[in-house]
């Protein structure tokens, strides 16, 4: 047992917690503890993020010159496809749900574990199998269809390894379904006495909405990928126009999942931001009910807008009009959230701790990402911008500027709870600023490139686009540094970080009332909840 104690004087020996209760690889690989599974997931998705990020850097290097001399077209096409597949299915989709939410949801609602702990472990194993199949795909040569797998290119024409890629995503999809299923049941059935729906932390609300999307959407992805696989293996013709198949049908099925999937990737991040903004403004979230219900509104509406990916495919124009209108409507709940977070800071007592810096970054970048989404929802503007770097910039503002920012913010916020250690404030604040600057330099020029018409997925481009591409590549290198720094100080903190104590941020919420790191069963006895979430008023008064 460790004997050094940095914490409060009464702590003499390190207490038993979920990390040190058992040792050895078996105690990890066969664990059913949601916190240990969250850590397993955290390690896995970080590795996948590094792989996907490396591919992104290689792409940006190639795009330094208009001729794209550094990599061949074949290599480049596989780079962007594998970047997309890995980042979407193996990082963004599981990022917050499978790590932070897996760790926190049972604690936040006062439960000892998720409803189905073994299913939770199975979900991680499926993720790992999917990841291995995908990495196998990378090593044998990769896939070049883009993450969208559009037929008939993927089903008939591509000479790359489509089957392993499809298989990897298919398996990972079931991992996502199981996570979602577990969360839905947990939130419904495992809440502690007194933890009513109106008292749930907004992080739980947004992950509940996410879980609904995972459960309702992902099966359709599974079936559309299965169809691609059959078409490719046996040439059955379902998407083959030569015998009467319709490639557009694949797009319908694919986007029925993949548009809601965009919200799978952003909703949990919104939940994280609600927690952080409340804590570092020392205030209850402004308009709790509206923020909670806007998550549910997004969950429902996001299933009604998928056709906005198909405005120029020859989709019925009448359907396009309906999809355009609904796409504007789905922007309203997102806007409500942004306004409420901003209003939460009003008359608050704001501090610039690292998680809050990420939250600022999130709100700003998500605002830009969301507003540029309106451009793409506008029929007449989607025509010139569709399939260009405008789209690339838009979704990176939402996915990286939004979700990755939120993930980093959440990780910094709950790292002391998960590991019991504090990390360097200076370095973490610095890296947050570097990431913000690097991100904007990388992706803002891409909006301009997009309206100028530079198509996405081009390994070479006309020379007049070079200046903006060089700026973007320069930004990417800054962004990469911004992501490497946290990796270092987080690992450093595991060994050398000061003990965090139970509640380093003086935050509300059940997770801050238990030990850091928590014990295996989280609570010695089931807590009884008597107050609303974010009840910062009494806490502040007590401190004076």
């Amino acid at each position: 047992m460790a004997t050094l104690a940095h914490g409060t004087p009464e702590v003499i020996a390190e207490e038993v917690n979920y990390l040190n209760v058992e040792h050895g690889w078996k105690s990890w690989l066969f664990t059913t503890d949601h916190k240990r599974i969250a850590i397993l997931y955290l390690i896995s998705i970080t590795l996948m993020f590094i792989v996907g990020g490396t591919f992104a850097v290689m792409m940006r290097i190639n795009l330094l010159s208009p001729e794209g001399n550094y990599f061949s077209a074949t290599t480049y096409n596989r780079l962007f496809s594998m970047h997309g597949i890995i980042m979407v299915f193996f990082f963004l989709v599981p990022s917050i749900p499978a790590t932070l939410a897996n760790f926190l949801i049972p604690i936040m609602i006062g439960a000892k574990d998720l409803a189905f702990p073994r299913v939770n472990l199975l979900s991680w194993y499926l993720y790992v199998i999917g990841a291995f199949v995908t990495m196998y795909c990378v090593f044998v040569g990769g896939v070049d269809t883009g993450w969208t797998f559009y037929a008939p290119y993927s089903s008939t024409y591509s000479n790359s390894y489509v089957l392993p890629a499809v298989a990897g995503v298919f398996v990972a999809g079931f991992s996502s379904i199981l996570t979602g299923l577990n969360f839905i049941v947990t939130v419904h059935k495992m809440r502690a006495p007194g933890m009513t729906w109106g008292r749930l932390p907004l992080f739980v609300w947004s992950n509940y909405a996410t879980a609904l999307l995972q459960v309702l959407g992902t099966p359709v992805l599974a079936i559309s990928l299965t169809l691609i696989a059959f078409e490719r293996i046996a040439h059955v013709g379902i998407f083959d126009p030569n015998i009467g198949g319709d490639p557009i049908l694949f797009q319908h099925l694919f986007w029925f999942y993949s548009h809601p999937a965009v919200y799978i990737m952003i909703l949990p991040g919104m939940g994280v931001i609600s927690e952080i903004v409340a804590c570092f403004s020392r205030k209850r979230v402004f308009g709790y009910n509206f923020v909670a219900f806007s998550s549910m509104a997004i969950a429902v509406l996001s299933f009604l807008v998928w056709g906005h990916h198909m405005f120029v495919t020859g989709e019925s124009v009448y359907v396009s009009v309906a999809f355009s209108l609904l796409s504007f409507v789905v922007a309203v709940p997102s806007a409500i959230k942004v306004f409420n977070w901003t209003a939460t800071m009003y008359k608050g007592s704001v501090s610039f701790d690292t998680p809050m810096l990420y939250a600022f970054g999130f709100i700003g970048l998500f605002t830009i990402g969301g507003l540029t989404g309106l451009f793409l929802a506008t029929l007449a503007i989607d025509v010139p911008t569709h399939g260009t770097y405008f789209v690339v910039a838009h979704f990176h503002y939402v996915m990286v500027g939004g979700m990755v920012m939120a993930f980093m913010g959440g990780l910094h916020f709950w790292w002391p709870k998960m590991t019991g250690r504090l990390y360097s404030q200076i370095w973490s604040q610095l890296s947050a600023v570097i990431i913000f600057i690097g991100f904007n330099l990388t992706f803002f020029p891409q909006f301009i490139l997009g309206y100028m018409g530079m198509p996405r997925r081009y390994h070479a481009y006309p020379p007049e686009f070079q200046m903006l591409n060089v700026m973007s590549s320069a930004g990417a290198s800054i962004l990469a540094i911004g992501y490497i720094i946290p990796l270092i100080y987080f690992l450093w903190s595991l060994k050398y970080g000061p003990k965090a104590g139970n509640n380093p941020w003086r935050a509300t919420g059940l997770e801050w009332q238990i030990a850091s790191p928590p014990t295996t069963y989280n609570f010695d006895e089931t807590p009884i909840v008597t107050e609303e979430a974010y009840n910062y008023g009494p806490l502040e008064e007590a401190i004076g």
Partner: protein
Amino acid sequence: MAETVVHVDHQDASVEATHLRHHFASAQQQMDASTLGMWTFLVTEVLFFGGMFAGYAVYRAMYPAAFASTSRFMNIVLGGTNTAVLICSSLTMALAVRAAQLSKRKALIVLLIVTMIFGLVFLYIKWVEWHAHWEEHMVPGFDFQYPVPQFAHTAQILFFLYFMMTGMHALHMIVGVGLLTYLLVQATRRVFNENYFAPVEMIGLYWHFVDIVWIFLFPLLYLIGQQHS
């Protein structure tokens, strides 16, 4: 209508008998959680099959005549028999759950075996049908030949949908038979009683769901278009 109501007093039910897992507060909570979990899983299954049904609907609207043509190559007698077999298996499954709830172990074992036999009969008949299609070169991707020339191309898509849908359904049946085997083993070990029958009930829900899928597949694949023959 008077129903037999069994009041389970879970205060008295020992943890041993209800197989209560550590993270649940009560057997009731555990039961509720597994029920909701199962229904959530079935919702994903609905959408999984729904993707195929959507493809079916689109192509059927595109090529109605070709569809009518292909349904003439379906064996309506075998399909109808299979429908009846599955309905019978659903009945025995429902009765098996009832037996488990009433702690009637022998009845449970018998009913589970009967349900399994119905399931296997279904799979056998399905196999006979597939084999006939195989002999007639009607398996897309494997030397597909269609005797009606004007539908030579489109029929391939429709037959693919047929094999995909019935194949996925059969896969679910095979999984179902495997789950029933598990239940059978557990039942012989006297695991189930009036306080603990959740696995029987959950697998029962799954079995009924698979039956429902077939209830839709039968008219869509076999019956529509028959009137023209």
